[in-house]
Every structure is written in C-alpha cells, then in structure tokens.
C-alpha cells in the first residue's frame, strides 16, 4: 500500500459517518461486551500459553532422564544394592550418567511434603539414582527388567507416565482454552449482529436515502464496519488492559504465596504480543461481522 493510499484509507476511516451511529443507543453497551469478551479471551489464551510452556519445560526436563528407586526391603545391604544397580547402569550403552542421590538430598526434596528432615530418619526411605541418557535409543523396558532381576527391590521409572500425563493435561487445557476463545468470539459476533440489526432498524430512513441517492451496499456496510471497528478497538483495549493487569497480579501472587509449588506465569515476549493482538483481531472480527450483517440485510432491498 502506497503512503497516499494509506493516507486516503486513514482519512476515510476517521471521517464523519453519514449514519449517526455514534450518537445512538443501539451500540451503547457493545464496547463493554467487547471488553468482557477480550478480558476472558486474553485470560484463557494466557492460561493456554502458560500451561503449554510449563508442560514443554517439564517434558524437556523429564525426557532423556530416568529415576531408579531401590526400596528398603529390610533384607540385604541397601548400599550394596545401590552399587550393583550403578554398576549395571554404567555398563549399559547409551547411559551418559548414573548418580546416586544421597539420603540427605532425597530428604530435602521431600521436605515440602513430609516436613523436617530429622523426622524422616525413622522412615524406610528408598534410595534413588538419577539417570541421564546419552541418546534416546535406550530400551528402557528391557533395562527396567534387567534391573529388577539383578537388584532386589529396584524399579525403573523413565518418567514416561509423567510426560504422557503432562502432555495430556497440557493438550486438554489448550483445548478448553481454545473452546473458550471460540465461544467468546461467537458471543462477541452475536452481540455485534444484534447491535447492527438494531442500528439498521433505527436508521432505516437514512439508509434508504443513501440507497436512493446511489450508495452501493458496500458504502453503507463500510459505515457500520468502521463504527464497529472503533467500538471494538475501544472496548478491546479496556478488556486487554484489565486482563494483562490481572495476569501480572496473578503471577506476583502465585510467586509470593506458593514459591516452587506452581509453575508460575512464565510468558515470553512473543506470548505477550499475541495476547495484545487479541484486541485488533477482535475489532476486525466485529467489523467483518457488522459488514456481513449489513450486506445481508441490504440484499433484501432492490
């Protein structure tokens, strides 16, 4: 688009409307409806982005690693069984590292759930070995069987259950968020249709005059679309500001109230850009809906 065409488009966009849409009651509540819709859509989309990012992080951390747990069965030396397991693991091709986790470190990990480490001394705590794969080609099922056969009480957890669970949760949340965004867009579009239909009824005389002096349907439809675009941008900006403010507040509350327990709202710059883009997208959707509604109504005139 050349600067001259851009300037012409802008002048037409901000030009006074031939239809007195700004001063009537038909769309008075539309900015607030759009504000609420954008607020909900932004929160849903942010939740989906945050959960998706957290799931990816967890999945990345857990993939390529495994935990061997050697239960305290009360028979035989636990240290000897840990050494046997380490020996087997370190001889297995594709395993980069196999490090035992000390009882003190394990107790620290359990502290948020079970309390003071001193009280854990009486519990039959299993011993843990942290395993890192060099490649993803390790046959974890066979390795688990070998470990169980060679080391009594040993079990091998390659985190697959967790990874699959996390992926399912992330997919579910993203699906729900998508449904919410689609519903919100649908409700916004319906609100626009009702407002535009009211506007068409209220301004029927003016529309007929414009029609009779040679206005194309596009001319009248674009008047409604321009007005609705501004309404959408205004309402959307309010909803977006409220939603982004809420998200920032939530992230502070989550971080301060339960540090380490919640994944927190970790959004990248691109995520924030996408959240802000909801406003113009909603406004464009509203304008397109208004235009289509008017064109459909005018098609009934000769």
């Amino acid at each position, binding site marked *: 688009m050349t600067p001259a065409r851009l300037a012409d488009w802008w002048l037409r966009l901000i030009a006074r409307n*031939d239809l007195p849409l700004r001063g009537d009651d038909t769309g008075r509540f539309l900015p607030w409806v759009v504000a609420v819709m954008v607020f909900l859509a932004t929160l849903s989309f942010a939740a989906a982005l945050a959960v998706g990012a957290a799931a990816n992080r967890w999945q990345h951390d857990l993939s390529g690693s495994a935990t061997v747990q050697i239960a305290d069965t009360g028979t035989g030396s636990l240290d000897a069984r840990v050494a046997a397991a380490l020996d087997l693991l370190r001889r297995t091709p594709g395993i980069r590292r196999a490090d035992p986790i000390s009882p003190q470190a394990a107790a620290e990990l359990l502290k948020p759930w079970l309390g003071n480490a001193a009280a854990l001394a009486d519990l039959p705590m299993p011993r843990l070995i942290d395993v890192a794969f060099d490649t993803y080609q390790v046959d974890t099922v066979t390795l688990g069987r070998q470990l169980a056969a060679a080391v009594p009480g040993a079990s091998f957890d390659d985190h697959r259950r967790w990874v699959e669970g996390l992926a399912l949760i992330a997919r579910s949340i993203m699906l729900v968020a998508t449904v919410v965004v689609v519903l919100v867009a649908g409700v916004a579009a319906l609100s626009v249709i009702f407002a535009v239909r009211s506007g068409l009824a209220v301004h029927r005389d003016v529309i007929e005059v414009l029609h009779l002096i*040679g*206005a194309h349907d596009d001319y009248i439809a674009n008047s409604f679309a321009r007005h609705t675009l501004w309404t959408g941008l205004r309402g959307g900006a309010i909803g977006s500001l409220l939603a982004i403010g809420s998200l920032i507040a939530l992230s502070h509350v989550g971080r301060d109230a339960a540090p380490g327990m919640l994944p927190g709202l970790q959004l990248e710059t691109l995520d924030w850009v996408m959240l802000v883009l909801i406003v113009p997208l909603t406004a464009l959707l509203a304008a397109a809906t208004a235009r289509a509604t008017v064109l459909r109504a005018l098609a009934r005139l*000769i």
Partner: protein
Amino acid sequence: MVRFDNVGMRYGSGPEVLRDISFALAPGSFHFLTGASGAGKSTLLRLLYLAQRPTRGLITMFDKDLATLPRDELPALRRRIGVVFQDFRLIGHLSALDNVALPLKIAGARDDQIRDHVRELLTWVGLGDHVDAKPATLSGGQQQRVALARAVIGRPALLLADEPTGNVDDRIALRLLHLFDELNKMGTTVVVATHNESLIARMRHPVLHLDKGELAQRAAARAATP
C-alpha cells in the same frame, strides 16, 4: 430516456395501485404528474427513482431494461436521477453543506472537489449563509431548497420532485418551479408531482394525470411522448 410499457404495480397481495401504465419521457422534457390522493403518484415516482420494481410490465431507463438489470448496477443508474422528496428526507446530524455533498461523496469525489461546488450551489438556491446549519434549524422552505440542491448536485439527467410546492406559499412555490425550469433548460428531464393546478396552468408543461391507478387518456395524450 424513460419508457413504461403496460406497467402494473401492487404491494404484496393487495390490489393493483398502478394498472397498464404506458408513457415515455423524452430527454430534456418537463412533465407535471397530477392526480388525487391515492391515485398512485407516489408509487409511480418510486418506480421512477428505482425504489421499487414493477410487478408487471417493462420499464426502460437510460436504455436499460430494469427487469434484467443486475442489482449492483442500480446505484450507478440512481446517481443519474435526482429526487426531491415530499418530506425532504435530509439527514439530521449533517449540515446543509454535508447533506448536499452526499451524492458527490457517495460517487467517490474528493473533499476538496466537493466543498467549493456545494457552496456555489447552496448560494444559487439562496442558502449561501446557511451552509453549516443543521436541517432542524432551517425553515420548511430552506429545507426544501437544501433537498433541491442535494437532488441536482450530481447533475442528474432526470429530476423528480414529489409535491415540492406542498409546504410553501405560492411565491416560494413559483420560485422553486422557476429553478426546475432553469435546470430543464440546461437539459435535465424534469417530472414534478403536484396538486397545485394554478402553478400547472402558469408553467404550460404537459401533464401526466393519474386516476385510480391508471394514466388518464386525456392527460396521457397531452403529456407523454408516445
């Protein structure tokens, strides 16, 4: 320019309000359209300014057959027709200048091309000092002249006026008709629907007379070009 052949018109399933209307308007002609209330004058005008399509018969305007004309070609045809509505139908939130400028704006003219032309025309109809006035602040006669200016700003080939003298005294009515006469002399085809027999007698233009939805033979013979 305009030809009606056996045109009939009914609204919904009601009776025919126009029956077997046939006439032709030559380019540059001036006709009065008369008839009692309910005779079908407004319906005939609505057909002429393309607000309705006939339920039967053929209408040809500017060499286009309206029955086969695609809908998206109607706006271009309407821009060649100027209409002064009986109730003026000015747009209340726009100034006199913006009301008159509307047909040019709709036709896609640039603002700088529009303004001088509109001011000039408003001065011609005697409203040079009221360009920024809203319709509600103007008298009936002034509103009528704004409506006339809006109707002629696009230099229409056909000018239609529905009872333009109905709301004004005889002096202003005569002045308005002289304005129509001037436009007619510049080549515009004019049709004026009116009840005012004294004005019709003064102007000596042919008359299309409607009687109960039919074009009366006497008036049709006098008025229309066959």
